[in-house]
């Protein structure tokens, strides 16, 4: 049946108005040999009840966070999502609108994006934010490309403590545009500052780091920024927005471009997407930053209103000379983040960050009480993620697998990403959604699995 509205009578009347006798006459411009004959090889149509049942069955083949005790993080987080976020997001007025090219009919989404940009600036301490990008990884890649364009330099330096997937995406983007990526080691769970000093030269367009980094640890951010600036390069930070409820905004330690993943601000994990890349930078990059941006203006009567602005940077106007090829972004996910940040507000986001801090420290304490389990990076400062090392000879993947049979996702085994850490390294994430009992259960299950 589908969602077509025309009846046979409608169609007959339309044929007459057009002056045709059969639909095939409208296919005249398609050469006969290119017309698809027969039926596509697709599964047969389903009723609404049938599709819901099918999808329920398919989704039941997965083990979601709900019903599982998950300590997985690494760029996708099960932060609590206040009900109000999905209630607003599911409003058809937002969900089924197109990009706000006609501002008079799109003031709701335009004002939302303006408020989103304001909140991202507040979080990051930067002057301007764009209207959103695909995800943290592509935002980081866009930042790298922007730096090469601004400085006319063709090398990017990245710390090995940046999320391995993000590094791969940056590498992909740079490789096919002909730029070079230099990776600096992160031997003790954070960027090796001396190695960075050596790697950064007058060819370096930008230094890319993550804070807190992939291991959850804080970086010596001021030193990283100073090294970049010392060589005339830009400092680019990938940040976790929740952690910014507590941490100093990157604008205060001199970062030039801040990017990050906004999924944790009210959106579900959704097996990794859709995500929300945020992108903020200094005012001096007004003409060179990528992506859409919304500005306030006035209408013919002088009333305040909103519209997309600085459009001459964009692909539909500037074509091959645009600052980026991005067009569709993540407006609805940006809406989620805006509602989330409004709901939590000045104190709520700090409370969430603090709860992560408290619970993750409690968790590390409990886990390291297990004989042989230790922190991989003693003394590392962290907000919600940390790395533990299992006793010698214990394989994190195997242990995690045995915990999963008890309904616990123990974290991310790191051997595949950082072989030097050994097979016992496990990245553990503890958000505000975990209770003391949850953490105690995790610790008991891990102790039992290792015994």
């Amino acid at each position, binding site marked *: 049946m589908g*969602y077509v509205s025309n009846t046979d009578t409608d169609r007959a*009347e*339309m044929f007459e108005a*057009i002056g045709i006798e059969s639909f095939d006459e*409208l296919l005249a*411009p*398609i050469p006969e040999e290119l017309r698809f004959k027969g039926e*596509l090889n*697709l599964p047969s*149509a389903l009723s*609404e009840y049938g599709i819901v049942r099918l*999808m329920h069955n*398919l*989704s039941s083949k997965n083990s*979601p966070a*709900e019903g599982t005790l998950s300590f997985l993080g690494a*760029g996708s987080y*099960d932060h609590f999502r206040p009900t*109000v976020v*999905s209630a607003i997001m599911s*409003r058809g007025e*937002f*969900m*089924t*609108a197109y990009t706000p090219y*006609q501002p*008079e*009919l*799109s*003031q*709701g*989404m335009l004002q939302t994006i*303006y408020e989103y940009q304001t909140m991202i*600036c*507040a979080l990051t301490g930067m002057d301007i934010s764009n209207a959103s990008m695909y*995800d943290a990884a*592509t935002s980081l890649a866009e930042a790298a490309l922007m730096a090469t364009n601004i400085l006319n330099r063709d090398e990017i330096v990245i710390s090995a403590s940046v999320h391995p997937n993000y590094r791969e*995406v940056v590498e992909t*983007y740079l490789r096919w545009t002909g730029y070079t990526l230099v990776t600096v080691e992160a031997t003790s769970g954070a960027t090796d500052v001396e190695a960075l000093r050596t790697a950064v030269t007058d060819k370096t367009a930008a230094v890319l780091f993550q804070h807190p980094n992939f291991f959850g640890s804080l970086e010596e951010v001021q030193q990283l920024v100073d090294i970049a600036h010392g060589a005339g390069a830009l400092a680019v930070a990938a940040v976790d927005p929740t952690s910014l409820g507590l*941490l100093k905004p990157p604008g205060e330690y001199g970062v030039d471009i801040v990017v990050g993943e906004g999924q944790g601000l009210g959106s*579900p994990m959704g*097996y*990794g*997407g*859709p995500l929300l890349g945020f992108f903020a930078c200094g005012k001096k990059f*007004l003409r060179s930053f990528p992506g859409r941006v919304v500005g306030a203006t*006035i209408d013919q009567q002088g009333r305040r*209103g909103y519209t997309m*602005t600085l459009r001459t940077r964009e*692909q*539909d106007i*500037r*074509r091959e000379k645009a600052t980026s090829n991005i067009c569709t972004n993540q407006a*609805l996910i940006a809406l989620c983040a*805006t509602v989330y940040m409004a*709901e939590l*507000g000045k104190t709520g*986001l700090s409370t969430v960050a603090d709860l992560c801090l408290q619970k993750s420290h409690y968790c590390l304490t409990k886990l390291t009480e297990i004989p042989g389990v230790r922190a991989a990076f003693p003394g590392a*400062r962290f907000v919600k993620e940390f790395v533990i090392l299992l006793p010698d000879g214990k394989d994190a993947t195997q242990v995690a697998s045995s915990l999963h049979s008890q309904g616990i996702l123990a974290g991310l085994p790191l051997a595949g990403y950082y072989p030097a850490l050994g097979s016992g390294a496990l990245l553990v994430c503890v958000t*505000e959604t975990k209770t003391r009992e949850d953490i105690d259960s995790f610790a008991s299950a891990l102790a039992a699995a290792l015994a």
Partner: protein
Amino acid sequence: MPHQTIFEKSRRGRTGANLPECDVPRVDAAETLGAGALRTSLPLPEVSELDVVRHFTGLSHRNYSIDAGFYPLGSCTMKYNPKVNEKTAAMPGFAGLHPLQPEETAQGALQLIYELQSMLAEICGMDATTLQPSAGAHGELLAMMMVKAYHAERGEAHRNIVVIPDAAHGTNPASAARCNFKVKGIPGNDSGRTDIAALEKALDGNVAAFMLTNPNTVGLFESDIRRICELVHSVGGLVYCDGANMNAMLGLTRPGDMGFDVMHFNLHKTFSTPHGGGGPGCGAVSVKKILEPYLPTPHVVKSVVGDQATYTLDANRPQSIGRIHSFYGAFLLAVRAYTYIRTLGARGIREVGENAVLNANYIRARLADHYEVAFDNQVCMHEVVLSATRQKVQSGVRAMDISKRLMDYGLHPPTNYFPLIVPEALMIEPTETESKQTLDHFIDVMIKIAEEAKDNPELLKTAPHNTVVSRLDETYAVKNLDLRYEPIFTATE
């Protein structure tokens, strides 16, 4: 009355969130993280949950949508977004999945990705598909990377030119340029299609690819497409299909059969996933066998042992162009598109194509006496491009004025001033989900506006009159840049 920002509604001490108490022994943040690492203020608003609900509900009332009315925005395929898609995408077994959990705990998700990859390949007549790109432009960029890898591996890295018609979407040249290709534009011919002679002239051994939208951006099918693909292939180039207009071809004809080597879909257009006011999207890319090795990592593959199928994320693909997304793309959009295709089946998919084409031609036929139809009122595919040149000559009324006047009648305007090759363009794409009655209403209003353009042009030039704001001053926006609500940054704590 202007709608206050959420920041203006803020009152010290108010909060919406109901967060848990800390139930573990506390550590001191300054001691643990270092006082120097902490922030001293966070200028987010302080509002109650009711404030949040009223604020954003109020904003939603200031936003037009498909759910509210007809949205004939050309090239955007604003079809109905089925509600059941939202129900399936919200199922905890999909929405609550972590991308890095063990593959054996996500078999349903991987199976869905694999089957959607296959169904899209079947629909477009290609061999393999990736769902990783987050938008059409992201798909184009991926395709350009694969084109580059393909030529490089054949020792033809010197191919540095991508040929693109002047009528193309701006993302095409922008995506090619992002991959360091030089863009060579070619004009169209008098019938609104690719000028074969101009194409032949542009083709040589340095051409890496030709990017073409089919049906093209004038809404016309490229009838010479076989010959076009042969010409490009004869100089060693590849042919890319911008699939923004795929809705016109569903079940009727397939890009893979025409000779295209690679194309992108917009799941947020053709396959009914909501556009969300500007995203998220999914720009799935399908390829012929020759490009399959270059697809991004990880790629979802199926293996069968006995009667047991297993789905895995294959990251070991030495010829791959690499990773292009933090994880695997917009999975929850894949769930919606999968729901849509499984609901429709093969015949339902073809009905989409047929009715999309019928609806556009109906509008064309009924408005042809009142507006110029670009390129001599030919049979179009899923969209028709009108031109307001007659109105402009008569009374100085421009395409934008007609669009703004449509708003007064409660209708969303068509796309304006695109494609660039049609003066005063009004690009109308009704989609298959609209009924004849809705189209008739739109047509009647368009005819009335054509009359108004003759009798009372000022009414159009000053439109819209019935919207929450009147025409916005875009020059003022650029000259007085205001990209964030400044008072919160200057207020004393």
